[in-house]
C-alpha cells in the first residue's frame, strides 16, 4: 500500500521553544488517520508544517513519496492536493457560503483564468449539492460572518471538500458541534475518505473510537505511540498525559 504522506524527523523551533522535536508520521493512501495528544503537543503545528503555514527548521515532508512539501509555498501545496481546515473557523466573513464555495471550488486559480471564469451549470449544481450536504443551503445567501460557530465549522469543511483534495487535514472538525452533528460530520468524513486520505486532529474520544482505524498519539513534539484506539487506551503513558481516568 502506497504512502500519500510521510514526515521524517520534522522539527519546529519557535525562537527557542521546540514545538516539534523530530516527528515521524506516515499516512496511507485512502486511510483516516487520527492524530491525538495533549494540548500543546504540536498537532496543529505539524499540520501547519505540512500545509506550509509554518516552515520546519529541520526534517522532510514527502507527498505521494515524491514531492517535498517543505520547500513549496502554500498555494502550490494546495495545488498538489493537500487541503486543510483550521482549528478556529477561518472563512470569509463578507461573502456568502455560496460565493465562498465558488471560490474554493477546484478550478484553475491563476489570475487570468479567474478573470475570464464563468459559472457553469455543472459547477452551480455541484455547489448547491454540497451546500445541502453540509446543511447550509438555507443560509447560502447570508453573509458568512453571521453564521453560528457550528455552521462556520461545516462551511469550512465544505470549502475543503469542494477542492477535491487527495489529502485532507482536519483540525478539530467537530469542535462546537452537538452529538447529532458530530455523527453526521463523521459520516461525511467517512464518505470523503472514499476519494481521499484524511488526517484528523481531535480530542473527542467517542468520535475517535467511532471513526478511527488507526490512531497516532503525539506528546511534547514527538510521536508517543500509535495503533488502534483499543491499543492506545491501554497505554499507561497515554493515560497519564492525555486520557486521564476516563476512556
Amino acid at each position, binding site marked *: 500500500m502506497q504512502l500519500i504522506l510521510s514526515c521524517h524527523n520534522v522539527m519546529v523551533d519557535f525562537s527557542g521553544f521546540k514545538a516539534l522535536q523530530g516527528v515521524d508520521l506516515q499516512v496511507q493512501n485512502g486511510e483516516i488517520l487520527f492524530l491525538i495528544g495533549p494540548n500543546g503537543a504540536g498537532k496543529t503545528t505539524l499540520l501547519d508544517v505540512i500545509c506550509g*503555514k509554518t516552515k520546519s527548521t529541520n526534517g522532510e515532508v514527502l507527498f505521494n513519496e515524491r514531492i517535498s512539501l517543505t520547500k513549496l509555498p502554500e498555494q502550490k501545496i494546495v495545488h498538489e492536493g493537500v487541503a486543510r481546515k*483550521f482549528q*478556529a473557523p*477561518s472563512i470569509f466573513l463578507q461573502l456568502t457560503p455560496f460565493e465562498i464555495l465558488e471560490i474554493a471550488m477546484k478550478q484553475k486559480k491563476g489570475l487570468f483564468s479567474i478573470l475570464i471564469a464563468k459559472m457553469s451549470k455543472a459547477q452551480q449544481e455541484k455547489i448547491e449539492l454540497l451546500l445541502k450536504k453540509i446543511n447550509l443551503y438555507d443560509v447560502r445567501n447570508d453573509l458568512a460572518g453571521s453564521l453560528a460557530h457550528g455552521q462556520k465549522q461545516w462551511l469550512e469543511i465544505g470549502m475543503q471538500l469542494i477542492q477535491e483534495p487527495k489529502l485532507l487535514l482536519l483540525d478539530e472538525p467537530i469542535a462546537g458541534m452537538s452529538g447529532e452533528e458530530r455523527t453526521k460530520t463523521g459520516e461525511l468524513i467517512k464518505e470523503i475518505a472514499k476519494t481521499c486520505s484524511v488526517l484528523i486532529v481531535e480530542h473527542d474520544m467517542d468520535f475517535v473510537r467511532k471513526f478511527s482505524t488507526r490512531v497516532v498519539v503525539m506528546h511534547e513534539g514527538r510521536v508517543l505511540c500509535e495503533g488502534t484506539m483499543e491499543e492506545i487506551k491501554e497505554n499507561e503513558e497515554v493515560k497519564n498525559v492525555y486520557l486521564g481516568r476516563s476512556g
Partner: protein
Amino acid sequence: MSIIVTQLFNGISLGSILLLIALGLAITFGLMNIINMAHGEFIMIGAYTTYVLQQAFIQYLPQSVFSYYFIIAIPLSFIVAALIGLLMEKTVVRFLYERPLDSLLATWGVSLILQQVARSIFGAPNVAVVAPEWLNGALTLNVITFPYKRLFIIALVLMSIFTLVLYLYKTPSGRRMKAVTLNRDMASCLGVSTRRVDSTAFALGSGFAGFAGCALTLIGSIGPTLGTAYIVDAFMIVILGGVGKLKGTIIAALMLGILSTFVELSTSATIAKVIVFAFIIIFLQWKPTGLAGVKVRALD
C-alpha cells in the same frame, strides 16, 4: 575628524527630535491604531502654548523671572495639548476605534480646522519664541560645539521615554491600555472601563505631541502649518519601528537621524531625503512589520 563627531552628534540630535515628534504618535497610532493626521497640529498647539506663556511673562511679570517661563512652558504645553486631545477623543475619535482607516479621514478634517483656527487666533505670520538665556550658547569640547538647546532636547527625550516605558510596561494602567487596544470588547468584559482608558491614552499621546511642540520652538518656526512639516516623518518612524513597539520607535528615530545627517554631509539635503525614504521602503520589504515587529500566530 571633528566634523564626523559633530555630524554624529547632529544625527543623534536630529534623531532625538524625530523621536520627540513620534512619541505621541507611537501611542495614538502605534497602540490605539488611530491614524491621527492631526498629530502635527497638536505639536503646533504645544508651540503656541509656549508662545502665549512667553507673551504673558513679558506682559505681566518682571524681566528678571522671564528666563524661567520655559520651565513652566514644558508641562503647560503638555497639559494644554492633552486637554484638547481629550476633547477630540470624546467628540470624534471615540467613534472610530472600530474603523481605524476612517480615523485618518476624520482627523484630517480636524487638522484642517485646527490650522485655520490657529491662523484666526494668532494671525497668519509666524510668531517668535525667544529662547531663555540659560539655553543659549554651547558647550565646547576641543573645537566641537554642543549647543545647549540640543543637549536640553536630548535630555527631554530621554526623560519622556523613561516615563513612558515605565507607564506602559510597569503600571496596571499601561497594561489596561494595551488590553483595550488589542481587544476592546473582551477587555470590558473583564471589567476594564474602556472609555476611560481610551481617553487617557489619547490625551497622553496628544500631550507628548504638545511637549514636542514646546521643544521645537527652540529650533524651528512657530506658525499655523508648523505640524505639516513633521507629520510624515513621525508616521514613518512609528511604522519603521514596528507599530506599537516603543523600542522599535526609538531605534528607528536614531537610525533615520544619523543616516540622514551623514548622507546629507556627503551629498545634499534633497538627496538625503530621497535616500532616507527609499531606505524606509526597502527596509520594510525586508522586515514587513518594522524593526521590532513580531509575527503573530493568528492566520489574519
